[in-house]
C-alpha cells in the first residue's frame, strides 16, 4: 500500500462520518415540541440541573458491584472445567478469591460500605 492509500483511508473515514451526519439532517423528518426537548421523553419529569456534586459513595458501590460481577463471570467457566482439572483449578480459584475478598474486607474496614 502506498501513502495515497493512507490519504484515501482518512478521506473515506471523514466522508463516512461527515456524510452520515449531513444526510441524516437532510433526510430525517424533524418535529419540535416541549416534550421532545426533555432529557427523557417518557417517565417522571426531570428536576433541577445535572451539574451537581454526586455522592462519591455511588462510585464506590458501583465499583465493588462491578468487581464481584466480573468475578462471577470468571467463576462460571471455572465451574465447568473444575472436575477435569482437579486440585490445580481449585487452588487457582482460591488464590483469585482471596485477592478479591481481601479487597472487599479492605473496603469494609475503610467504611466504604456505610451510607450516611
Amino acid at each position, binding site marked *: *500500500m502506498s501513502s495515497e*492509500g*493512507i490519504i484515501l*483511508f482518512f478521506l473515506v473515514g471523514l466522508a463516512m462520518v461527515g456524510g452520515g451526519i449531513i444526510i441524516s439532517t437532510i433526510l430525517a423528518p424533524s418535529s419540535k415540541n416541549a416534550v421532545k426537548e426533555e432529557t427523557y421523553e417518557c417517565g417522571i419529569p426531570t428536576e433541577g440541573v445535572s451539574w451537581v456534586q454526586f455522592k462519591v459513595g455511588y462510585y464506590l458501590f458501583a465499583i465493588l458491584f462491578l468487581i464481584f460481577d466480573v468475578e462471577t463471570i470468571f467463576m462460571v467457566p471455572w465451574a465447568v472445567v473444575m472436575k477435569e482439572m482437579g486440585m490445580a483449578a481449585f487452588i487457582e480459584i482460591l488464590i483469585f478469591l482471596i*485477592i478479591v475478598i*481481601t479487597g472487599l474486607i*479492605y473496603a469494609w*474496614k*475503610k467504611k466504604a460500605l456505610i451510607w450516611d
Partner: protein
Amino acid sequence: MDFGQFLYMRHEIILSALALIVLIMEISSDKKSKANIIPVLVALFFINTVAGFLPVETGSLFGGMYKTTALIILMKNILNAGVLIVFIQSAGWLKSNFTGNDNIGGYFFIVISSLIGMDFMISAGNFLMFYIGLELATIPLAALVASEKLKERSAEAGVKLILSAALSSGILLYGLSLLYGTNGSLYFDNIASSFQNNSLQVLAFIFIFTGIAFKISIVPFHLWTADVYEGAPVNITSFLSVISKASAVFILIILLFTVFRGIEGIWNSVLYFTSVLTMTIGNLFAIRQKNIKRFLAFSSIAQAGFIPLGIIGGSALGFSSVVYFVLIYLFSNLGAFGVVAAITNKTGKESIDEYNGLYSTNKGLSLVMMLSLFSLAGIPPVAGFFGKFFLFTSAAKQGYYLLVFIALINATVSLYYYLLVVKAMFINKNDVPIETIKNDGYTKLGLIICTIGIIAIGFAGIIFDYINSLTFGIK
C-alpha cells in the same frame, strides 16, 4: 501442568504477594501500629529486590503472551532498586503527611500495583498484555499524584495526568488496531516476521511511538510533564520521573528492536528529530525555571532526549548503553529528588532562590545535591559522565556525527543551568538560608545509597560488561 514454570514470573508473583500483605497489614493495624507498616514494607521490599537477582531460568509462558530473558530480568531489577529507594525516601513524607487514620498502606499498595504493571509491560510478548501492563502502570500514578488530598495543586496535577494519559492511550490503541488490521496478529514475534513495510504499518508505528513518547515525555509530547511534576508531592514526582520513565524507555527499546525491526530506517529518522527537539527544548526551558521541581522536570525531559542516541542505529552496544544510562540516571535523579524532598517536606520551600546559601546550614544535603547534579550534567568523575559517554560512542559508531555534535552542545548548555543551582547553594549569600534540617534515618539512608550509586557505578566497569554480555547477539 508444570507449576515450576511459574518461576519465570517470580518478580510479578512476589510483588503481588507483597501488595496483598500491605492490604492485610493496613486492615489489621490500628492507629498506633500504623507507622510500623513503613519499616516492615521497606524490609520486605529489600528482600524482594535481592531475590530478584537470584539466577533463574528464563522462557515464555501462556503460549507466548509472557516472556522473560536475562535482559528483561535485569530491567525489572533496576526498577525494583529504584522503587526501593523511593520507598526509603518517602518514609519521612508518609510519617508527616499520612497521620491518624490515613492510608499509609494504600500508598505502598498503589506504588506496588504500578510496578507490577510495569513488569508485565516489559515482559509482554503480545500487544494485549503490553496494553494491560501499561494501563496498570499508569492509572495508579494518577491516584498517587493526587494523594495530597487537601492541596488543590495536587488534585489538579492528578487530573492533568489522567487526561493526558487517556489521550496517549487512545492514540496508542489506534496504532495497535492498525497493526492488527495489517498483520492479523498481536504477538510480537508474528508481527516482526510478517512486517511488510507498508505505509499503514508505518502509521501504526508512529501512533504507538506517540503513545509511549507521552510516558517518556519526549518533545513534542512533554506538555503535561512540568505541571504534573510541580503539583505532585516530591516523592511521587521522583517516582514519576525515574521509575515510570525508565519502564517506558525499556519497553520502547524492546519494541523497536524486535517488533519494528523491519522499519529501522523510519524509526531512526523519527528518533533523530525527536531527540534533537527534546534535548534542545528541555534545556532551553530548564534555564528559565525558578521552581526547583519544574527545573528538575525540564532537566528530566532534556535527559530523555539523550536516550535516542543509544537506540538510533539499532546496535547491541546502543542497547546496553541505554540500559546503563537509565541505571545511572535513576541514581542521580533520585539523589536530586531526595534532597529536594527532604527540604520541601520540612520547610515547604521550592524556589531555587531559597536554596541560596544552603551549604552554610546543610552541608550534607548540598553535597549530595551537587554530586547528583554533576552526574546529571555528566562531569567526569561521577557516573553520569560514563552514561553519556557510552551513549555518544554508540551513536558515533553508527555514523551520526551531527547528532552527537548537537548532543554535545546540549550537554554543555545543561552544564550551565545545573551549575547555577550548585552556585546558588555554595556561593550565593543569603541572610536567611534554609534552617538546618534534621533528617531521620530513612532520608539519610536513601541519600547514602544514591551517593554510593552515583560514585560507584562509574568506576565498576563490571556493570557495563555485564549488561553488554546480556545484549550480545541482538540484531
